[in-house]
């Protein structure tokens, strides 16, 4: 088998609040290969978001080893981490997090801002992505003028604009009704079938079913169901 996209060995994360420290991740091991679709479930406060946050290079673990595409993350500089987030990783959040003053199309283009210049090609690609996600007529609307499902589809287009190799989603259907949830899940499945690696955190067993693999995180470690 080829080298994993993600390799976690004994990842620990300790938060220190005042004089008290909380060990949120207590030794997480994980291998994710290109093309995987992993769903992470587990009780609230179990550390799912914290883990996703470390996977997304937005924070470093307190201890343990994290190899992303074979590179040890703890040795990376802030600039290198920012570059990887920009180029290799797409994020989707429960609360969408679109900027309110920009149109759908402009929101999709936001990541290209931190890659360098925004080209005509980027604009075309953003437009095609929105078309594909069924938003052809809504490119110039502001987030406030879109439904929750539509906003999440804009966020998916934004996550895909720089053609990442990994998509991280934290409860992407958490704020959606069941119909919109199903649409989003369908899109994620299609993207995975096209080869995109996806790691998804969810509380919804229906959503988890669409993944190829499901893991449970409880009290800071993966447990067998």
């Amino acid at each position, binding site marked *: 088998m080829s080298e994993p996209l993600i390799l976690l060995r004994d990842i620990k994360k300790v938060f220190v609040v005042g004089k008290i420290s909380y060990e949120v991740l207590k030794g997480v091991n994980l291998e994710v290969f290109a093309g995987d679709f992993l769903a992470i479930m587990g009780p609230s406060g179990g550390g799912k*978001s914290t883990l*996703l*946050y470390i996977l*997304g290079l*937005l*924070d470093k673990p307190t201890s343990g080893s994290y190899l992303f595409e074979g590179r040890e993350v703890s040795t990376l500089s*802030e*600039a290198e981490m*920012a*570059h990887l*987030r*920009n*180029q290799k990783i797409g*994020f989707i*959040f*429960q*609360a969408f*997090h679109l*900027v*309110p*003053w*920009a149109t759908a199309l*402009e929101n999709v*283009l*936001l*990541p290209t*801002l*931190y*890659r360098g*210049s*925004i080209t005509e090609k980027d*604009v075309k690609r953003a437009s095609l992505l929105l078309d594909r996600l069924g938003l052809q007529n809504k490119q110039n609307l502001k987030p406030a003028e879109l439904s929750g499902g539509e906003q999440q589809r804009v966020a998916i287009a*934004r996550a895909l604009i*720089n053609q990442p190799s990994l998509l991280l989603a*934290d*409860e992407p259907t*958490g*704020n959606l009704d069941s119909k919109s949830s199903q649409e989003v899940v369908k899109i994620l499945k299609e993207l995975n079938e096209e080869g995109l690696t996806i790691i998804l955190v969810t509380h919804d067993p229906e959503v988890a079913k669409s993944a190829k693999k499901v893991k449970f995180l409880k009290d800071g470690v993966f447990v067998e169901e």
Partner: protein
Amino acid sequence: MKLKLKLLFGALLHKKLRLLLSLIGIIIGVSALLIMNSFGESAKVKTLAEIETFGPDLFMVISGSARVMAGRAMQTEQMTTLKVEDAQAIRNLPGVKNISPVYTGQTVVRGEGVNLITTVNGVNEEYVAMRNYPLLEGRNFSREEIQTLSKVVILGYKIKSQVFGEKSAVGEKVLVSKLPFTVIGVLAPIGVDASGQDQDDQVLVPYTTAMSALFNVDYLTGIFIKAESTSTLPYLVKQVEELLIKRHKVDPKRKDFSILKAEDLVQAKEQTTRTFSSLVASVSILCLIVGALGVAGIMTLSVNERTKEIGLRLALGAQRRDIFMQFLIESLFITLAGGLIGILLGLILVFILLPAFNYPLIVPVKPVLVSSFLTIIIGLFAGVYPAYRATKIDPAILLKSG
């Protein structure tokens, strides 16, 4: 490029009312600063011009006691002791280039059906040249006209314009205190001199005519003296003073005359200007500080409101220094926008206020540069703290469901 700017700074225009509010302090501060500086610059030009108009090598003896108040020579007490013979005695002193006895009074000038109350200055044939008065038309008095008490008059520019309009006035008749006078000359526009008198609002007649026909007196109100050079002026002033003390047999501490130079007149005015400027300076600096705090406050508020946007930008690949620069530039942009509006507003007000207060109109290059420079400094100063705060945002904020 446009898209790039929109994605970086779109948030700025999102809340327009707030943007405007945050600009107000800066606008007021910058325009006040600009106006204050422009008045300062203009005052310098004005002072020099007034000394020039008065004549830097000129001084006057005023009958009675005179005081300089708010830049004007005010005769506080009338005396009848200054005589034509005094002027003759002064003329014999070494270092005197020109001299003119002066009798100044108020009178009514009537011509073409127009009545005007104005200042009449009785002078001799040397006066026009001493004061560097340019003639618009006609000629100066002749020595003979002075000696023969002729009823001839030279009109100030405003008097001529108000009576005769655009027409030529030379050769026309006007009534001065109901007596017919022939206009022999008209002065070109001069403006206000260091004594605070509008030199365009006066008529000149022979002093002999003024003393006998118009006012029926045997004394002068003043004597104008021109020194041979500016450098000998202080010495000559002293000589004149000693001579008059001797002739009038007065106690040097209780003289019946005063001597005024251009400098004396201007000094008092400069003092007033200086007090005024420092007051306005402190007020506008205060405005700018308040403006800067306003921008800093608004930007901090904005950072606090936009924690999610900041977290998002970090997640999408921004580095902390990108975030820092973004917010610093936003502050700078707000301040510069305020500064620009303030400068424009200030310029408009300068162009309205300078003429309104009888200050010479100048293009305030230096004040504009100073204001622009201060604006940039303030923008940076106001922006650093909010921008620093923005870099401290934890992207974990994104993972909250709200």
